[in-house]
């Protein structure tokens, strides 16, 4: 407290320097924690408002249509080419030690467990996730989200919940599509172009790829899809700074989603297989 006429104790200049240095050192950790906190806060709100009526089924279906139907072409296209490339590489590699009849098994397992969920999620992130951030960000900077609030419509319930649900449900569906077209692409290259026996190829797929492998992939896809939507909504929902701010938010959302997919891929794989955990 300042008292007139009483000399205040001076702060040692060194203390200020230490404070600044500490703030500087802790800034990255602080930023990470703030980011995690923002996501957790939005997630909690979404869970709370998602369980409360009204249930806007029409909005859920629209969001699923946007994430799912809207991504069919891009997921189908990338799935086909990933399968074809993988087929070429495996035939080329396995021929060196005469194991090309195992190509069907490896393609099937790799697609089901890893390639399909990761690539489908990356496609969903770059197409639907970025669009979610841009749309919500534009709504935020033009006061449309505040307008919802003033009309007594909770914006998390109206805007975020349907998108999270769409990410959670539709990314596994797109992953199944990726599995199918990826396998078809690999079959085309391996059997039609590189001369593998079609019966052996398909038999190895049937023999080695079981429901657990597909389940692992679908579990990953659900985790990725939900995370992508959460990251996209968090950045759009709290965007600021006009058009440039929306651009920055979209950029951050896409980068964070891609990193999150790869990190979560390791985490889920480790948990499911019980290996690789510290």
């Amino acid at each position, binding site marked *: 407290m300042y008292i007139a006429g009483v000399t205040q104790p001076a702060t040692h200049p060194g203390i200020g320097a230490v404070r600044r240095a500490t703030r500087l050192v802790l800034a990255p950790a602080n930023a990470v924690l703030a980011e995690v906190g923002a996501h957790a806060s939005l997630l909690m709100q979404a869970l709370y408002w998602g369980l409360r009526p009204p249930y806007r089924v029409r909005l859920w279906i629209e969001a699923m249509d946007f994430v799912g139907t809207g991504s069919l072409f891009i997921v189908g296209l990338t799935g086909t080419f990933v399968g074809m490339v993988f087929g070429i590489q495996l035939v080329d590699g396995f021929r060196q030690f005469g194991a090309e009849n195992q190509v069907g098994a490896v393609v099937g397992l790799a697609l089901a467990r890893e390639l399909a969920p990761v690539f489908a999620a990356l496609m969903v992130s770059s197409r639907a996730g970025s669009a979610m951030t841009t749309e919500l960000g*534009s*709504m935020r900077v*033009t*006061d*449309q989200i*505040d*307008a919802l*609030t*003033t*009309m*007594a*419509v*909770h914006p998390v319930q109206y805007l975020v919940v349907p998108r999270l649900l769409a990410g959670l449900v539709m990314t596994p569906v797109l992953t199944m599509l990726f599995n199918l077209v990826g396998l078809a692409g690999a079959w085309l290259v391996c059997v039609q172009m590189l001369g593998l026996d079609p019966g052996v190829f398909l038999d190895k797929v049937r023999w080695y790829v079981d429901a657990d492998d597909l389940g692992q992939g679908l579990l990953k896809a659900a985790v990725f899809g939900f995370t992508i939507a959460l990251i996209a909504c968090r950045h759009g929902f709290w965007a600021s700074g006009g058009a440039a701010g929306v651009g920055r938010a979209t950029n951050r959302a896409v980068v964070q989603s891609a990193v999150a997919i790869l990190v979560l891929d390791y985490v889920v794989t480790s948990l499911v297989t019980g290996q690789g955990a510290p």
Partner: protein
Amino acid sequence: MANVANGARTARGLRPVRWLPGRPPPPDPDPDGPVHVAVRDLVKRYGDHEVLRGVSFDVLRGRINVIIGASGSGKTVLVRQVIRLERPDAGRIVVDGRDIAALDERALGPIRRKFGMVFQMSALFDSMTVYDNVAFPLREHTRMPERQIRERVLDRLAALGVEQAVAKLPAELSGGMRKRVAVARALVLEPQILIFDEPTTGLDPLTSRSVDELIVRTVERFGVTAVVISHDMASVFGIADHIHYLHRGRIELSGPPSVFLETDNESALAFLRASGVSPEALRRAAGRAAG
């Protein structure tokens, strides 16, 4: 300043309310009395920056209450607290006798339905047509059949003179039309209090005056209480029943427009003169009008 004698309209049975920073705020009003919303000692901080430093004022029922102040004085922040888009750090906001300052989101739902807000840039949903924008609150909050919704929407749009734009998207409308549609949307659930955030900003003078007329006609026709944030002084003295001057996070001066013509509050006078308004000239004009 043709409407400088608005003070006469304001004076209909209403005593000017004036208090200065440092004095204790007046007690909470009677819920059925002339005060619709009472704000008491409202404080809002962003980090170390205290934007509102103990704001107290009354919003008079059925009147046009205008909040003026320089850019950055906290007008929009103040109104965001009043409608509880943000939670104030301290103070009370008493709406119809109930303090809403600390209510949670669930409890705020019915309170928010008492308010309608027209944002500065109108905030129409750009993916919906004009019709769907205005129908939106009805579809969310009522079980009206679509035929009845259509009747209500077309009635509101016709009352505001934009019924011809019913099938258009907001991007296809002019600024003035967007404002009218936003008013129609804000009115469709029949709120008691209508808030306008800088309604004439970015509009040309003619459109600005038509928006002023729109506010006056809306209050008269629908009997709502209006809160208008503005620093367009031509507009303020044209429509206000009651003016609150916000300066450095506090209400420095409150009262009907006539109070501002007689004030010796230096910051209010400086603000008026900087806005191109000369209280002396206004007094002379008022005298000529009375004579």
